[in-house]
């Protein structure tokens, strides 16, 4: 934030500002997608359990909806985590490096993330095509609607990695990364 303010007048300031806006938009898209998926599955499964115990019958597709919505909940969460830079990593090396070396390392890390995301995206075509032929039994929805959550997640992570890469090149500060874990 402060780096962007300091460099507000230079062209690189524009890069930082745009990247912040795009990343915030991705963060919000993740929040909306994830909370909607989580809330819908919660309501449906709760109603299903209640129906089973009161009327003795359930909703058949309550056992299938996760096949579509859990991938989207995860994709939403993954994009938020990437936007906030809280993906689980081992951050020993950047902690012991000087500022210059750390800058190079962080550029390398963002590049590696970008490359892995792009290789997943580039190789996704055959699977996506095959999934257009697959239908969920009770919902009657094509599996490709679930698989496309992976495209959203990996494209989102790729965009964030690319923007972070540009931001560091444009002079964003490289404070020691936050340690995050979720065991």
């Amino acid at each position, binding site marked *: 934030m402060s780096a962007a303010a300091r460099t507000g007048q230079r062209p690189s300031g524009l890069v930082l500002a745009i990247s912040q806006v795009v990343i915030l938009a991705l963060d919000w898209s993740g929040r909306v997608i*994830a909370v909607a998926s989580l809330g819908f599955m919660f309501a449906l499964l709760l109603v299903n*359990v209640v129906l089973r115990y009161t009327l003795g019958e359930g909703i058949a597709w309550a056992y299938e909806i996760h096949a579509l919505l859990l*991938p989207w909940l*995860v994709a939403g969460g993954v994009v938020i985590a990437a936007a906030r830079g809280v993906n689980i990593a081992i951050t020993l090396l950047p902690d012991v490096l000087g500022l210059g070396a750390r800058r190079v390392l962080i550029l390398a890390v963002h590049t590696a993330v970008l490359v892995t995301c792009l290789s997943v995206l580039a190789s996704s075509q055959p699977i996506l095509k095959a999934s257009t032929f697959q239908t969920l039994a009770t919902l009657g929805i094509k599996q490709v609607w679930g698989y496309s959550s992976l495209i959203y997640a990996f494209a989102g992570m790729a965009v964030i990695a690319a923007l972070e890469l540009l931001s560091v090149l444009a002079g964003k500060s490289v404070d020691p990364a936050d340690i995050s874990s979720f*065991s």
Partner: protein
Amino acid sequence: MTAPLIWIFFALLALSVPVAHAMLGGVAAALWLDGKPLAVMVQRLYSPTQSFPMLAIPFFILAGNLMMSGKFGVFLVNIAQLLVGNLKGGMGQVSIIGSVMFGGVSGSAVADASALGNALIPVQKAQGYPGGFAAAINSASSTVSVLIPPSIPLILYGLVSSTSIIDLFIAGILPGIMLGVGMFAMVWIVANRRDLPRSPLAGGFTAFRGQLLMATPALLMPIFVIGTLRFGIATPTEVSVLAVAYALLVSGLLYRDLTWGGIWQACVDAAVMTGAVMIIIMASSTIQWVLTAERVPQELAAWVAETIRQPWLIILALNLVMLVVGAFLDLPAAVLLLGPIFVTIAQAIGMDPVQLGLVMVLNLSIGLYTPPVGTTLFISAAIAQVGIGAVIRALLPFYAVAVVVLLLVSFIPALTIH
């Protein structure tokens, strides 16, 4: 394919590439070098999201978030203080008792370490506890959360090993309590030697009778979870949904501190945590594919059974491997990487998969407070504002307690198989 995969994975990991991307990078390179289609990655990434039991993870996280965000968190600390505050080093004991109680609503040690650490470490330091000791208590005791049900690592282990999650949850109770009791005794000894202050709750029982009563429904959550599972009222996923409903009811009707903003925040936090955990699960499923395609688990299991022969030596060897891996890798990632391989080995020596699951989660949870990478260790040290070295010196007796419990669980099946 296995050799390049392992080298590239560890190289990227050391460069501090996020764990999931390091896995994917290793797999992509290995597939590419072997001329195999990379499309398999997309397919395997998707596979874990198709599992109905996996859905229990976001819901248990959400239930814990909802429960701890409101008044219950304050009540919990007060009750622990009422119970053990009067002992020497009372605030240290509160941390342990709090972790055991917190364990019943949360499936994650990291959530425990940050929630209880932020509440207790500053108080302990103000009372004259050495910062390293305060951080040590918090980082070690918070791992009790992953043994007392619900537990995210135990759900993961159940999924990768096809073991009943219900059996695993029930098996976790006794080791979790043993660990709590061991640490309780350790703090008692240290507190007496260092003459740490007592901190009885001002006003005592009469002043907090109301809170005790109010906190009871939240404290009953583990009994609710275990009860519904044990008596076959619902599947683990449905129980996790019921736990969310229960948390909403308790904080909405009883504590009246539920807001739409609070629910939204709890959901977003649960989604971020789910995303961060699941992407590692998904990425390790691609590694599993490569290992399976090359029959690594079977060959490794055969090799171990052939070379070591003595079951007790094999169990010891498994423990050593887990301690080393756990020192470097985060708990969920380590469970997913080692689970399938170790289950095959355990089968070969007739070890029960439930017992192995508890040994594995207990062992890897020690890694949460060992260097070089220990999440609860880092969180606690940051809260206490002390160096890692000071915390590790204070942690030495806790390692001893944990290793004793680990050996007992490893070699006495009766502790986990009821």
